[in-house]
């Protein structure tokens, strides 16, 4: 077992990047991901990590540099948040379509405007359909483990896709948490050197990024989607092996006291740990409540989700993003769609809250539980979703 130390989550993320022996880091400052690249620049300048640190002039170039790095068969890392992600958006999509593996940490932050440096998932949802493997990490240890997991899965020749790790800005990036480091031998066993199927090299010239005529385009895109869907078996294998190696087993949908639950909260990101306390409190009151935490966001774990819902009668879906003019939060919309064909569809209530780090406390989640029960007993179809904790609502 590796050493266990207390460290800011951003710093431990950078230490995991070092353990992954990345070759190039493209870095552009944006709050709240800055501590990660700052620490990486220290590791490189102190000679602790043998990598090229490329301080690019924009996030658009950060992602472009990473595509160039991955295209020659080297290991690339970058991280960003909200506006940075929006600026690099174009290349985020292309990296996936070119099947170039890399790892990006997205320190989740609100999308402007008004400009806000604080945390929610509006940036995550803005690139939901970009074709990357996307996972949520809920604490510092999970961030550390998933950096290594990201390279392991993305670089698998059966997958060849970039991997994005979502971590809540400030709430996770800026807190000190105990993190258990891996032993070097564990990393070596888990993460082999990157061996791409094709790489840019004069000895074996290849053309990458050719343009697709309508006669080819659909086939290329469907193949890309199939690659993402099929990556799940590699994801599961990589999680199992990680568990065997370091004793932490991860699953696409993490569950907490959900087996016999009548009502399930469903969360993404750091809300999960708060809601687990709410579940305990409600259980103490004799209410059969449980929690599902969505870890794997893309590819969407449809079977695991349906199975985890089981016979629960009520789902309380907590969204941290708005789908303007839509039918609820992005997570709730996906989950409703996932359950559409189920014979015994549960009641689904949906709350959008915690935008720009607005605090959502244990009492707030209890209120949401009570409100859900009221709605379900009244007319469950009364409203598809509601904003929680907003003045005037």
């Amino acid at each position: 077992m590796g050493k266990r130390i207390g460290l800011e989550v951003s710093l431990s993320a950078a230490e995991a990047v070092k353990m992954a022996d990345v070759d190039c880091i493209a870095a552009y400052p944006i709050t709240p991901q800055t501590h990660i690249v700052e620490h990486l620049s220290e590791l490189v300048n102190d000679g602790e990590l043998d990598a090229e640190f490329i301080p690019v002039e924009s996030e658009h170039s950060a992602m472009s540099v990473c595509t160039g790095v991955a295209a020659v068969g080297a290991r690339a890392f970058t991280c960003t948040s909200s506006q940075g992600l929006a600026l690099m958006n174009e290349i985020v999509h292309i990296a996936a379509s070119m099947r170039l593996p890399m790892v990006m940490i997205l320190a989740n932050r609100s999308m402007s405007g008004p400009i806000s440096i604080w945390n929610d998932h509006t940036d995550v949802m803005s690139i939901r359909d970009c074709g990357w493997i996307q996972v949520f990490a809920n604490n510092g240890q999970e961030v550390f483990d998933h950096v290594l997991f990201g390279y392991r899965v993305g670089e698998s020749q059966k997958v060849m896709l970039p991997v994005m790790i979502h971590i809540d800005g400030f709430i996770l990036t800026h807190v000190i948490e105990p993190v258990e480091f891996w032993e070097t031998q564990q990393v070596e066993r888990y993460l082999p050197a990157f061996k791409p199927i094709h790489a840019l090299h004069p000895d074996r010239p290849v053309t990458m990024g050719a343009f697709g005529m309508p006669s080819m385009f659909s086939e290329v895109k469907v193949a890309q989607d199939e690659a993402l869907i099929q990556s799940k078996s590699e994801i599961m294998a990589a999680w199992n092996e990680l568990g065997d190696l370091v004793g932490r087993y991860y699953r696409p949908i993490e569950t907490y006291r959900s087996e016999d639950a009548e009502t399930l909260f469903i969360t993404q990101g750091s809300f999960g740990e708060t809601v687990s306390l709410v579940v305990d409190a409600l259980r103490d009151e004799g209410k059969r409540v449980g929690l599902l935490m969505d870890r794997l966001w893309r590819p969407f774990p449809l079977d695991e989700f349906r199975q985890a819902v089981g016979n629960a009668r009520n789902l309380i879906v907590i969204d941290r993003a708005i789908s303007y003019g839509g039918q609820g939060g992005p997570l709730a919309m996906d989950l409703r769609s996932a359950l559409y064909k189920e014979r015994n569809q549960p009641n689904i209530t949906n709350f959008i809250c915690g935008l720009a780090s607005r605090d959502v406390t244990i009492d707030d989640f209890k209120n949401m539980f009570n409100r859900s029960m009221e709605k379900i007993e009244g007319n469950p179809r009364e409203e598809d979703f509601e904003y929680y904790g907003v003045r005037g609502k």
Partner: protein
Amino acid sequence: MEPTNVYAYKLINRKEYFSPGHRACQGCAEALAVRLVGKALGRDTVVACATGCMEVVSTPLPFTNWNVPWIHVAFENAAAVASGAEAGMKALMRKGRLPKKRITFLAMAGDGGTSDIGVQALSGALERGHDFIYVCYDNEAYMNTGIQRSSATPFGASTTTSPAGKVVPGQITWKKNMPEIAAAHDIPYVATACPSYPLDLVEKVKKGARVKGPAYIHILSVCPTGWRLPPELSIKAGRLAVETGVFPLYEVEHGRYKLTIDTGKLRPVTDYLKIQGRFRHLDEAMIAKIQQRVVEEYERLKKKVKMTQGD
């Protein structure tokens, strides 16, 4: 022309790295320039190409005209993609995962991909000092999308977004001086070139690849389709651009300016303008304005040559 140049054409690499069969228009001087750049750089080259004519004419999936490793990602980021390829390969070689070898990294884009949408990525890559060569194939408008004006479109030219109208006579801004902007980054090598002067072009590209650090080559690439001139006049138009002083051929080596082709007394700009449909509408006053500007800029360039060759 130096006497050695008479037989020197035979010394140009006979191998094709940008192979025949591409879909460029008849008389496309840009395709010719790309071919010459490939010959100058040879096989050990990795190309990062921006979206644009050259990407479209050479890589309709599943075909390719490229016999060297080649990547296209997007429009504005050729310099950043090349930065990544260069840095990645450098790290792999240093860490012993690839055999050490001298590889040239070429980023290429058109004038839109360079002086408009790609100028930020280019400036970043030049400032960071990556060991690569950036070639701008300047055909003076967005030809791939249908001849829209760019910041490299010359004053007076009629394009589809700067049409010669009843009130506004075509492009009313002066061509952005991209080679000077590149030179302002204090990089080791900057040059202008034109495929109408193939030996000059090849020598400059070779020199750019040899220097340690970034090199920038700005190649005027005559576009018969967009300039409205017969394809057989492509090479001649390039020569006239140089002989009139509209596009002087020079290099800036570690800050020292040198005119590499000095054609002596400049020909009048009308010799260059009158063969092109895009300038057909120009009246005498507009032509006089262009003539005056060309002479002024040429004199300014000669002053820089004089000033920097002395030290």
